[in-house]
C-alpha cells in the first residue's frame, strides 16, 4: 500500500547525489587551475545540491487524483469519474518531458490512492464474510437444537415404548397364568364329572345285572312250578287209576296242583314286580342325576364363566388404559419428532442463501484481481489492458445484492443507515 514513499525517497537521494556530484565537478576545475580555494569547491557542491532540490520541487507533476465519490451518488457520477480516472492514469503513465522519475512518482502516487480507495470494498467484504459466518453458525445452531430435540423425543419415545412393551408382556403373562389355572380347574371338574358318570353307569349296570339274575331265578322258579303242576296232574291221574285206594293220594295231588297254581301266580307277580323295580331304578337314577347333578354342574360352570369374564375384563381394562395413556404419549412424541424433522428441512435452506452471497463475493474478488493486475502493469510502466476502477468493484458487488442481509451489512460496514426498511418475508397478493 505505501511502497511509493520509499521510491520517492530514493529519487530524492538520487537527486541529492547527482546534484552534489555535479557541483563537485564544477568546483574542482577552478581548483585544479588554481583559480579557486578548496572552500570554493565546497561552496560549489552545496550550491549544486540546492539547485537540484529546487529544480526537483518545481518539476513535480500536478496530476489530479481521483476523488472518493460519496455513497449513493455513484450511479450519477460513475461515467464522469471513470473518464477522469482513465485520464489521470494516462497522464501519469506518459512521462513528462525530461522527467521520467516524476511520471513514475505520479503512477505510484495514483496506485497508492487507488489502493486507499479499495478500503470501503475491503470493509464491506469483511463484514459480508463475517455475516456469512454468523448466518452459517446460526443455521448450524438451529439445526443442532432441532437434532437435540429430535434425539430427546426419540429417547423418551423409546423409553415409553419399552415400558409399554414390558407392561403388555406382564399383562399377557398374568392372563396366561389365569387362563391356565382356569383350564386346570375346568379339567379337574370334567375329570370328576366323568368319574361320576362312570360310577353311575357301573351302578346301573350292576343293578341291571342283578335284575337279570332275578329274571333267571324267576325262570327257574317258573320251571319248578310247571314241573310241580305236571307232577300234580300226573298224581291226580294215578290217583284216579288207583280208585278207592288212591283217594288220599288224590287229595295230595290236588293240594300239589293248587300249590303249583299258586306258585305260578306268585312267579308272574314276581316278574311283574322285578320289571317294575327295574323301571323304577332307572327312573330314580335319572331323576337323581337331573336334580342334584344339574344344579351342581350349573354352579360349577357358572363359577368358571365368572372367572373367565373376570380375566377378560381385567385384560381389557389394562390394555385400554395403555392405549389411553402410554400410546397417547407415544403419539405425542411421534408428532414432536415429525415437527422437528420438518423444521430441519426448512433450516437447510440457509445453504442456498449463503451460496448466493459467496458467489457474489467471488465475482467481486475476480474484479479485484483484475484491478490489482492493472496496478501491477501501471507500476511496471505499461498501460493497463482493462483497468478496473476500485470504486467500480464495490458498485458491481452492490448491483448483485439480492438478499436484505447483504444491503443491511453493507450499510452497517460503512456506518450508514439502511436505505429501505425490510420487506415482509411472506406476502400474499
Amino acid at each position, binding site marked *: 500500500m505505501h511502497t511509493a514513499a520509499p521510491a520517492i525517497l530514493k529519487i530524492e537521494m538520487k537527486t541529492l547525489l547527482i546534484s552534489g556530484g555535479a557541483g563537485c565537478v564544477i568546483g574542482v576545475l577552478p581548483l585544479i587551475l588554481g583559480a579557486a580555494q578548496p572552500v570554493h569547491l565546497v561552496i560549489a557542491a552545496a550550491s549544486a545540491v540546492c539547485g537540484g532540490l529546487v529544480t526537483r520541487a518545481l518539476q513535480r507533476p500536478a496530476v489530479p487524483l481521483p476523488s472518493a465519490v460519496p455513497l449513493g451518488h455513484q450511479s450519477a457520477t460513475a461515467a464522469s469519474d471513470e473518464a477522469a480516472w482513465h485520464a489521470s492514469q494516462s497522464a501519469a503513465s506518459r512521462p513528462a518531458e525530461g522527467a521520467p522519475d516524476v511520471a513514475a512518482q505520479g503512477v505510484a502516487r495514483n496506485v497508492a490512492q487507488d489502493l486507499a480507495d479499495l478500503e470501503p470494498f475491503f470493509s464491506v467484504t469483511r463484514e459480508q464474510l463475517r455475516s456469512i459466518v454468523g448466518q452459517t453458525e446460526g443455521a448450524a445452531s438451529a439445526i443442532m437444537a432441532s437434532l437435540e430435540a429430535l434425539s430427546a423425543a426419540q429417547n423418551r419415545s423409546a423409553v415409553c415404548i419399552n415400558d409399554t412393551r414390558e407392561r403388555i408382556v406382564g399383562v399377557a403373562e398374568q392372563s396366561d397364568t389365569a387362563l391356565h389355572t382356569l383350564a386346570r380347574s375346568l379339567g379337574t371338574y370334567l375329570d370328576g364329572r366323568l368319574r361320576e358318570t362312570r360310577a353311575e353307569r357301573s351302578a346301573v349296570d350292576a343293578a341291571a345285572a342283578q335284575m337279570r339274575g332275578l329274571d333267571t331265578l324267576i325262570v327257574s322258579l317258573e320251571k319248578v312250578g310247571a314241573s310241580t303242576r305236571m307232577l300234580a296232574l300226573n298224581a291226580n291221574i294215578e290217583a284216579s287209576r288207583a280208585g278207592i285206594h288212591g283217594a288220599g293220594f288224590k287229595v295230595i295231588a290236588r293240594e300239589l296242583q293248587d300249590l303249583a297254581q299258586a306258585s305260578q301266580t306268585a312267579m308272574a307277580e314276581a316278574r311283574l314286580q322285578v320289571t317294575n323295580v327295574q323301571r323304577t331304578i332307572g327312573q330314580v337314577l335319572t331323576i337323581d342325576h337331573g336334580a342334584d347333578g344339574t344344579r351342581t354342574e350349573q354352579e360349577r360352570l357358572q363359577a368358571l364363566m365368572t372367572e373367565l369374564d373376570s380375566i377378560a375384563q381385567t385384560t381389557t381394562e389394562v390394555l385400554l388404559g395403555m392405549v389411553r395413556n402410554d400410546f397417547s404419549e407415544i403419539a405425542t412424541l411421534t408428532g414432536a419428532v415429525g415437527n422437528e424433522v*420438518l423444521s430441519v*428441512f426448512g433450516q437447510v435452506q440457509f445453504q442456498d442463501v449463503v451460496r448466493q452471497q459467496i458467489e457474489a463475493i467471488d465475482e467481486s474478488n475476480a474484479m479485484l484481481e483484475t484491478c490489482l493486475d492493472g496496478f501491477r502493469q501501471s507500476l511496471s510502466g505499461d498501460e493497463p489492458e482493462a483497468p478496473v476502477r476500485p470504486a467500480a468493484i464495490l458498485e458491481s458487488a452492490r448491483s448483485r445484492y439480492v438478499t436484505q442481509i447483504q444491503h443491511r451489512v453493507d450499510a452497517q460496514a460503512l456506518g450508514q443507515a439502511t436505505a*429501505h426498511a425490510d420487506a415482509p418475508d411472506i406476502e*400474499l397478493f
Partner: protein
Amino acid sequence: MHKVLIVDDSPTILASMVGILGGAGYITVKAMHAEDALAQVQAGLRPALVITDYHMPGMHGVQLIQELRKLTQTRFTPMLVLTTESQQEKRDEARKAGATGWLVKPVQADKLLQVVKQVAPSLQAIAA
C-alpha cells in the same frame, strides 16, 4: 391426485421443499429449471400449486408464471415465488405477472405449510 410443482435450480431447496411438503402428506413434482417445468405442464401435468424460485438459468421464475398463466390448465393455479430476492421492483413484477404470493428464503416449515393451506385449500394431503 393433487400435486405441487416445485421449480428451483438448487438441489438443496428442492430437497427441502420435498421434505417439508412430502412430510405433510403432499405429492410433489420437481423441476430444475423453468423450461422443464413448462414442458411438464404442456405434457399434461396438472399441478394444484406451483412454487418457483426467481433467479434461475434461462427463464426466470416470473417469466415462468407469465407463461403458465397463458395455459388453460394453469390459468387459475395458485403460484408462489420462493426466493432470496429483496428488491421491491421484482416483487411488484411478480404480482403483475399473476403470482399469488412472495416468500423469502429461508422459509420456516410451519409457515410454508400455513401458506399452502391458505392459497390452495383444495390441495389434499395423502395423510388427510
